[in-house]
């Protein structure tokens, strides 16, 4: 893309970010991974992407979960998927034709995963080249990594310059995150998002705290996201909660986006939500 366009679109100056390179490709690819499934990788990808796009950056989201396409659903774009990742990799369609522009933020585009294919069908070198190509036209390329540590994981990681590890405060999630951190190249400098924290349970010693989790993983903390019903409701509608200005969880994602672009925003601790407070009053969940 052109510098003039970039300056108008990129509301947040990125001089402190890692990818501020004047040469092509200019963008920065981040893989969102976790090892364990069901911890919120896809939700995190959609919301961090939406929050970055809302700041004016050009964002591409890549669903690397070949065979189990989901990111389109979370974004509410499922009816508009015509072509997918493997169509591009195999040269059937151009990248431009396969990218789906988001209906709310024109800055954000999605490259959907193939639903009828398998993870082994993706050529690692071609995947790297594809991410490289996306970085030429987008400021941020977010890659939604599949669960597991097999071929799909390797393909999702191969084109990335940095990594976000999503972990929930559960023994199984922390264990898998620990394994994934050991498998990620050091150069990706993984950062941690602790997802689905329930502050009242942590306070009562019934849930691992962010500190407990990070005592094991020892990663720079990128953000904390509370386990709130509003996230489920937003996903039901296919609307990223990050765009809801009244939502506390949305604010968590927006502050994560701010830190990604290099702003010095402290990681805020989620307060107990209304329902959680009522619930805690009556003995908690």
């Amino acid at each position, binding site marked *: 893309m052109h510098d003039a366009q970039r300056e108008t679109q990129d509301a947040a100056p990125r001089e402190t970010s890692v990818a501020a390179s004047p040469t092509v490709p200019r963008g920065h690819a981040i893989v969102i991974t976790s090892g364990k499934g069901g911890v919120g990788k896809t939700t995190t990808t959609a919301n961090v992407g939406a929050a970055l796009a809302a700041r004016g950056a050009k964002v591409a989201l890549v669903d690397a979960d070949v065979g189990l396409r989901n990111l389109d659903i979370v974004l509410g774009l499922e009816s508009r998927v015509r072509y997918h990742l493997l169509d591009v990799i195999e040269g059937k369609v151009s990248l431009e034709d396969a990218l789906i522009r988001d209906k709310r933020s024109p800055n954000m585009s999605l490259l959907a995963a193939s639903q009828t294919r398998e993870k082994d069908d993706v050529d690692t070198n071609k995947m790297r080249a594809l991410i490289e190509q996306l970085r030429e036209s987008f400021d941020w390329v977010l890659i939604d990594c599949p669960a597991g540590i097999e071929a799909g994981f390797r393909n999702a990681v191969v084109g990335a310059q940095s990594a976000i590890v999503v972990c929930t405060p559960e*023994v199984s999630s922390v264990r898998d995150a*620990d394994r994934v951190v*050991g498998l990620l190249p*050091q150069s990706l400098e993984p950062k941690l998002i602790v997802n689905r924290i329930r502050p009242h349970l942590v306070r009562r010693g019934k849930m691992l705290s962010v500190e407990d989790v990070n005592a*094991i993983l020892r990663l720079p903390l990128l953000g904390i996201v509370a386990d709130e019903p509003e996230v489920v409701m937003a996903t039901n509608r296919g609307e990223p909660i990050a765009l809801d200005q009244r939502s506390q969880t949305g604010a968590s994602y927006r502050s994560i986006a701010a830190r990604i672009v290099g702003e010095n925003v402290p990681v805020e601790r989620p307060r107990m939500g209304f329902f959680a407070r009522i619930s805690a009053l009556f003995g908690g969940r």
Partner: protein
Amino acid sequence: MFDFFSRLFKRDGSSATAKERLRLVLLSDHLSLSPDTVEALKRDLIEVISRYVKVDVGLCDVSFEQQAATVAMHANIPILGMQNERPAVPPPVYAKAESRSGGNSMHTSTGERPYLDDLHTASASSATATLSEEAIIGIEEANADSLNAAEQEAANSKRAHTNAPSNAGS
């Protein structure tokens, strides 16, 4: 009603259990992931023991296994007899090792380090009585303070799953 109040005031919940289980499972994960490290450990162990007694290298066996509250290292090292001379290599400075133990120190199950002289006086009988001695070396549970110290140390060092056992517990 009692249940309501007990839940309301109980602060010692299941997260402590989760933490402990996590610590153990990761210790086990890290150990089982590094056969090279286990092999190196076995080699060094045999080398050190060989300074004092003659061992049957071919029959030495070192393994790790998870027990109720710890991960234990079992070293089965058959002893053939005493070394005739005192070790040429001076023993390592125990005082130094002792001062920074706390964390994930290893010590023999007796808790006492055998002194060379004791070994010599007791050697005749024990060497003939048992050709094989099994030393169970437990990797002791780290207490909270020293765990933090170990974490700091580990954070600085390069992260790898082929950590030496001294790092694996943190």
